[in-house]
């Protein structure tokens, strides 16, 4: 079994999947609805303050329909209801209880889940009403849009860019290809593809995003400055059509360029290739099946150990034959794809080794991997000296041991009383190459696994950050699909134990997965570009919307700042969700003044501490609003997947599209109001 070279994907959070859609939509209505409510109330107040003797056109520009009024009232009532619930501590959102870390270590960000509790529902419905209210004139305008007009405006942007010879800018993209990076840097074989992929990704981001924001931010202001807009708004063109037509034009233009660039990049990778050593493992697009990871030990509250590395993405279990500590990945269900026409399912993993003692030269660390189903539930050992987990159903465990020995005796043609080491025999059973019948050992092992739902590999040697893999007989997954066993257990559990004393094994959820199969590298390469496409749309959208009201340069700056803040969105989010235990800035200042350790627990009785915590609560609320405005750019980055050889799931791309639309929609509504209130000739 050759080790795989790639697969070091760091998953600070899981990408959104279709199952997250409901929760995200709820969160969208809560957040976007809040903004909509403010907009709606301000708009109605403004409209009501227009004196009655004012011009009819002024009133028609700020018309308030009964529907908007009703929605405003409904929304207001629901917000009042929410505040009452909040004050009374009723209907708290228990579904989205935010896990905050106590020791400052890494906590994986999770997608919001749909919650039926009263508080989140009230917030969502209030937001929904506000969105409907403020969205009504917008929707009415959208219904009046005509494809011919939008297409005309879109084509205009296209033509303008091409007649201005903009494509020269995009040719810049070819520069890095003319001077391949390998001329300048020496790469390890396995890093060659990584660097090619990331260099193309950087080049594409740069060469596309910069012209995108320039084109979009200046188009409408230039139309207004050059007064071309006079001949457009005096045609039966809805104001939002101007915004949307421009958006489509530039987004379309950039999409074409993106597609061309992706193709060029792909051809480049195809033609130059990577060195022979890396080739076998390079062009991969693994389809992993990921599980949830928990730590387990004799003590129920074991959370893994923090070894004090600055990047605390991983936590550690102690290595020793007598260590009861395990990192356990669990799968609530078994995907059918894992069983279909195969003899085994690879399980791949990459861990970090933290050496407490120097260890043996050129030796890795030994692991024991134990894979069990519901029918083979395991419990930690009771005895202090004992590091081996036991079967919950001890009788069944003994039965298994006996059956395993019997199977080996049968294989070796031994008598019933001959002593055999079943583990040692099965340890070296190899699955058959594709299309060939399995060896006798493998067949016996498979049969045994299918019967008991238990499979273990001991003494698996691994090296620091080096991906390794074991092959699990398909019988285990078949067993997992059978009824029976302890229903409270997950269908499959994979427990990792570190055998080598004096070593700590660093694990994170993304470090181990079952391999369902492979997809085409080319397909993956093009899928990766979809993320960039979403980013392009977002940037073009923000820039155009801002330019409906601001001068070109200001719109450019505003869009650029908003967009680039998106690259730091995750870190800001950590601060807002209180994931950093040092608390927000208020608490930090308070502890600075009192010369406390920043990680000291705040004294809950102290009124100043309460005050600063209140300040931090408000601060984190403000930061959260800021995060609503800033695009979540990390979620559109698939370069890591590509370069580490993981297939980008299609449903995640669908979610990318959903979040892009969800992000841009409020901006578009804003642009509608800005454009409508704009005196283009003033």
């Amino acid at each position, binding site marked *: 079994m050759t080790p795989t070279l790639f697969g070091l994907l760091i998953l600070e959070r899981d990408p959104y999947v279709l199952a997250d859609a409901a929760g995200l939509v709820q969160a969208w209505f809560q957040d976007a609805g809040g903004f909509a409510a403010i907009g709606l109330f301000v708009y109605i107040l403004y409209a009501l303050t227009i004196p009655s003797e004012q011009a009819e056109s*002024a009133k028609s520009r700020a018309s308030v329909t009964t529907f908007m009024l009703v929605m405003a009232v409904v929304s207001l009532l629901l917000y009042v209801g929410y505040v009452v619930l909040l004050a009374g501590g009723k209907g708290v959102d228990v579904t989205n209880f935010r896990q905050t870390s106590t020791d400052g270590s890494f906590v994986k960000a999770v997608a919001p889940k749909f919650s039926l509790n009263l508080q989140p529902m009230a917030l969502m419905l209030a937001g929904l009403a506000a969105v409907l209210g403020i969205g009504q004139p917008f929707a009415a305008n959208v219904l009046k849009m005509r494809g011919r007009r939008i297409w005309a405006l879109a084509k205009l942007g296209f033509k303008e860019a091409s007649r201005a010879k903009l494509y020269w800018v995009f040719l810049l993209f070819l520069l890095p290809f003319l001077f391949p990076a390998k001329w300048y840097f020496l790469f390890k074989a396995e890093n060659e593809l990584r660097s090619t992929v990331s260099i193309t990704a950087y080049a594409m981001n740069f060469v596309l995003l910069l012209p995108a924001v320039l084109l979009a931010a200046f188009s409408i202001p230039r139309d207004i400055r050059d007064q071309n807009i*006079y001949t457009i708004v*005096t045609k039966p063109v809805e104001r939002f059509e101007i915004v949307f037509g421009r958006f489509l034009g530039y987004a379309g233009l950039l999409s074409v360029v993106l597609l061309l660039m992706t193709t060029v990049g792909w051809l480049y990778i195809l033609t130059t290739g990577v060195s022979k050593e890396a080739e076998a493992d390079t062009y991969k697009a693994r389809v992993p099946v990921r599980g949830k990871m928990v730590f387990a030990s004799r003590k129920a509250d074991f959370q893994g150990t923090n070894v004090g590395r600055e990047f605390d993405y991983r936590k550690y279990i102690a290595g020793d034959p007598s260590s009861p500590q395990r990192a356990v990945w669990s799968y609530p269900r078994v995907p059918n794809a894992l069983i279909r026409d195969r003899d085994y399912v690879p399980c791949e993993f990459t861990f970090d080794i933290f050496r407490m003692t120097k260890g043996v030269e050129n030796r890795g660390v030994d692991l024991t991997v134990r894979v069990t189903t519901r029918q083979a539930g395991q419990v930690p050992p009771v005895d202090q000296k004992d590091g081996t987990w036991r079967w919950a159903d001890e009788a069944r465990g003994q039965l298994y041991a006996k059956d395993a020995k019997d199977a080996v005796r049968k294989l070796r043609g031994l008598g019933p009383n001959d002593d055999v080491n079943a583990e040692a025999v099965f340890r070296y059973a190899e699955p058959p190459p594709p299309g060939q019948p399995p060896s006798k050992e493998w067949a016996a092992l498979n049969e045994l696994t299918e019967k008991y739902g238990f499979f273990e590999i001991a003494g698996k040697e691994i090296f620091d950050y080096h991906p390794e893999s074991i092959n699990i007989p398909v019988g285990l997954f078949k067993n997992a699909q059978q009824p029976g066993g302890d229903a409270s257990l997950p269908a499959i559990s994979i427990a990792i134990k570190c055998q080598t004393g004096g070593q700590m094994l660093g694990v994170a959820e993304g470090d181990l997965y079952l391999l369902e199969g492979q997809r085409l590298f080319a397909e993956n390469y093009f899928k990766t570009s979809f993320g960039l496409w979403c980013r392009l749309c977002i940037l073009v959208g923000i820039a155009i919307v801002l330019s409906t009201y601001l001068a070109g340069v200001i719109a450019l700056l505003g869009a650029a700042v908003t967009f680039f803040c998106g690259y730091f969105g995750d870190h800001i989010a950590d601060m807002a969700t209180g994931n950093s235990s040092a608390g927000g800035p208020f608490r930090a200042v308070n502890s600075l003044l009192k010369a406390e350790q920043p990680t000291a627990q705040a004294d809950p009785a102290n009124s100043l501490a309460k005050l600063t915590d209140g300040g931090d609560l408000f601060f984190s609320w403000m930061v959260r609003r800021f995060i609503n405005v800033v695009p979540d750019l990390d979620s559109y980055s698939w370069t890591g997947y590509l370069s580490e050889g993981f297939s980008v799931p299609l449903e995640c791309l669908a979610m990318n599209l959903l979040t892009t639309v969800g992000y841009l929609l409020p901006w578009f509504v804003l642009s509608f109001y800005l454009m409508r209130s704009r*005196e283009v000739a003033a």
Partner: protein
Amino acid sequence: MAQDVIVETRNLTKTYRDFWGRKKKTALNALDLSINKGEIFGLLGPNGSGKTTTIKLLLGLLFPTTGDAFVFGESSANVEKNERIGYLPEESYLYRFLNAEETLDFYGRLFNIPSSVRRKRAAELIELVGLGNDKKRILREYSKGMRQRIGLAQALINDPDLIILDEPTSGLDPLGTAWMKELILDLRNKGKTVLMCSHRLDDVQDVCDRIAILFNGDLQEQGTVTKLVEDAQRMQITATGLALTDALKHDLDAVIKKHGGTLDGFGHPSTTLEKLFLRVVDESRARPGRRYLPPTEATPAAKS
């Protein structure tokens, strides 16, 4: 009657403000106008008197500070009224990277005109404005007069009922000017309504049925051209083939005296509208705050 009014302004006022809402300039002050179907209406006035401002208000390019503007009975903020309007801006602000054909196609699409109709109409209009040989050249290369022509074609792409022309003859040579006037009259004959503004008085006099004179944002004079330039107290006799001699003067004097009149003088007729225009402007300068009073109100005022 109400049906026949195409454009109406009521107390239309526009004050330009700067970014902070401070008042910069009142460009139009309480304008009451109405333009009837099928007439050519001329807005006259010196530079900066508010002609373009009036037009922009009618088109919804500007929002009135107070008062209202109605076109086809609908508020100027309404977008749908634009279906029936053709507008030629003061300078033709078209996209310079498009050629004539593309320009017309673009604006045709904005009117949601199907492509077959669009193509046919564009070809006709290009012939009409005499750009047949230059239709493939981009507008950046056009001369001022050519741009004015393509601007006009653009304004007519939707076969509008109301055509608003801001200084249609600017940049045109005398031949072009004559052609433009011909075209405007032609449009009127087809039952269209035309609103044009200009400070070329001969243009206005030749084509307009009614005019309004603006000065410094105030309406100074309004009425049919013939009425306005007519001088009820005096009479003009025109003749051809005469030489100016003392004998002729003597004889004319005798004839006029015989009928109880006095001979003021004689010579070649001058453009009377120009006189009127200059008189109005002079008077407005001399008496700031002078305003046009509609006849119905003027009569009682005169009595008192």
